[in-house]
């Protein structure tokens, strides 16, 4: 026993090192998980408040660009204004049209912290569960898709950005072919679209938009444009490089997407899945 203690004492520095590294690795693995309890990360109120101060300064630097984005978005939305359309229909009735129900609503949030040069990037925004935000909600900006909500605290949430090695967004081409969009970590403005069959004709400059499959994003949110098309490894699929339309380096305001029919779609799909698994 005394020998053991002596041995431990002799190697105490090494033991301390191993102990601390085990703790660090535990923490690293914990940080990779989705939906962990937000104890100490950037959705923590103290950290987020500090970052908000920093970002208030940064915002001024990007004011001009962000105004341009918002003006462009306004112009786009104005085109949908019903008063701009001349009504060609002749039949008129006084009933309220109930054939449409609102599926998506958008919550505006302000970016308080944002990284783009790590391999796994997160964005912190100043709305939390007090504002009705839940994990797994989609996040878009005036210029395109941004990411998915990861952790939520009372007044802040962290968003796993498209610039994250674990993010797989379901996107499609104009032609309707769809596949996962991933980020390889090399450039904050480039992502890779895979699983598009090699016989599909893809042009440089084609738009890439979101699909509604995962219930995260509404259908047709701009993601980017095709930058280059190469045959992928194996030759069955294409490797498409996409220039992302969202400029992550100067994000200021984002919209968090609430999907009113998400639970309905998810429970239905879960039911079908479980029947499938039971072999019926």
């Amino acid at each position: 026993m005394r020998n053991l203690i002596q041995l431990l004492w002799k190697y105490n520095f090494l033991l301390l090192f191993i102990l601390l590294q085990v703790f660090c690795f535990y923490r690293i693995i914990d940080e990779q998980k989705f939906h962990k309890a937000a104890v100490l990360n950037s959705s923590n109120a103290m950290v987020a408040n500090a970052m908000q101060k920093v970002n208030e300064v940064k915002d001024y630097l990007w004011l001009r660009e962000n105004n341009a984005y918002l003006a462009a978005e306004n112009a786009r939305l104005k085109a949908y204004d019903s008063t701009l359309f001349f009504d060609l229909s002749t039949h008129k009735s006084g009933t309220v049209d109930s054939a449409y129900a609102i599926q998506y609503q958008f919550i505006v949030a302000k970016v308080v912290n944002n990284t783009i040069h790590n391999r796994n990037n997160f964005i912190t925004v100043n709305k939390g569960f007090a504002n009705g935000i839940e994990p797994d909600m989609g996040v878009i900006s005036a210029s395109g898709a941004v990411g998915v909500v990861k952790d939520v605290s009372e007044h802040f949430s962290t968003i796993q950005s498209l610039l994250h090695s674990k993010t797989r967004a379901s996107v499609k081409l104009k032609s309707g072919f769809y596949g996962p969009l991933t980020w390889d970590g090399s450039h904050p403005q480039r992502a890779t679209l895979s699983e598009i069959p090699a016989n599909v004709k893809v042009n440089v400059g084609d738009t890439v938009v979101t699909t509604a499959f995962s219930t995260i994003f509404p259908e047709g949110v701009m993601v980017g444009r095709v930058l280059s098309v190469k045959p992928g490894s194996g030759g069955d699929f294409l490797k498409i490089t996409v220039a992302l339309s969202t400029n992550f380096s100067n994000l200021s305001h984002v919209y968090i997407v609430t999907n009113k029919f998400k639970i309905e779609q998810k429970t239905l799909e879960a039911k079908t899945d479980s029947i499938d698994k039971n072999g019926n």
Partner: protein
Amino acid sequence: MAIEVIKIILRFLLLIAVQVAVLNHIELTGLINPYLYVMALLALPFKMPKGAVMIVALITGFAVGVFTNNAGLHASACVMLAFVRPGVFKLLSPREGYESDTSPSVKHMGLRWYLIYAALLIFVHHATLFYLEVFSFNAFFTTLIRTFLSTCFTLFLIIIVQYLFSKTKTER
């Protein structure tokens, strides 16, 4: 003594603040990420017990990482730095040994000694950080280039800061 401790703590707080508020927002081609905050760890006194250095390194790494959601990564890299620090001291030991009251700096040890000392430790820190972040050896060379370039840039910043803030240059 107490003044020394307060000075060291202030240096830590200042460097972490600069890292989080300024340097984390700088983007240079996606390959260069300067981590100036390691300078606070490099500048800890020679006589400080190595176990204590390691604990301080853990806390520092954690504090920086919390802001970018990778506290574990930074903590691990800093602990690694603290682990190899005594070895680097032994490797670079001058003939007459270290004056135990001083701390590693250009002023006390000369530019040549400091450059080698800092380059080795920063490389260890950055390599641990970047390889753990990718968590595979898939992009081995990209990560190596990234480590190398970032090490050079961090070293460059540290030397500049050393010259800017060493008031008693005339002493030597």
